[in-house]
């Protein structure tokens, strides 16, 4: 699991059939010092994360397989929206 910041939304018509109806967001992984990764990722969101929100993402496909079927390629899923992070260094969130 890791923290990421929601940066935007994705619209996609052509997709794997198991992904029909899923909400996809663009996120950037956050490092401990609060800096963001260079490459964006597309994640499945069932919680309604807003743009700018810090979320926790799981890269385990189990929850996606449970909800979307055994043959789904979905992997990165928003598993929680972060309220706060207690960290002496400041940084994330």
């Amino acid at each position: 699991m890791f923290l990421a910041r929601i940066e935007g939304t994705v619209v996609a018509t052509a997709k794997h059939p198991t992904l029909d109806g899923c909400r996809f967001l663009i996120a950037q992984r956050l490092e401990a010092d609060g800096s963001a990764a260079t490459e964006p990722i597309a994640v499945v969101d069932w919680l309604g994360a807003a743009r700018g929100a810090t979320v926790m993402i799981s890269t385990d496909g189990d929850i996606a397989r449970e909800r979307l079927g055994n043959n789904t390629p979905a992997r990165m899923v928003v598993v929680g929206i972060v309220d706060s992070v207690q960290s002496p260094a400041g940084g994330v969130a």
Partner: protein
Amino acid sequence: MRLGIVRGHLTLTPAVDSYRGKTLVVVEPVTMENLRAKNGKGGGKALIAVDELGAATGQMVAFTEGREASNPFWPTPVPVDAYCSLIVDSIDVSQ
């Protein structure tokens, strides 16, 4: 899933049986900077992904990596570690 731009297609002859009939694309991952700039550039290290959606050269796709990339072929075990899950129509990112 990471985002990438399709840069070409490839064929394998010969290939292991699991790849028979599968379309392979060369994908160049896109950095956040290039995604915001919408300049058609990638910037990441190119990789090969299986594509069943018919993505054309120049289109942006989101691809799954790792074990989940072979899920679409479940329960057949296949040596696939990148799979095009969706073709991007549009992306709305804050500048």
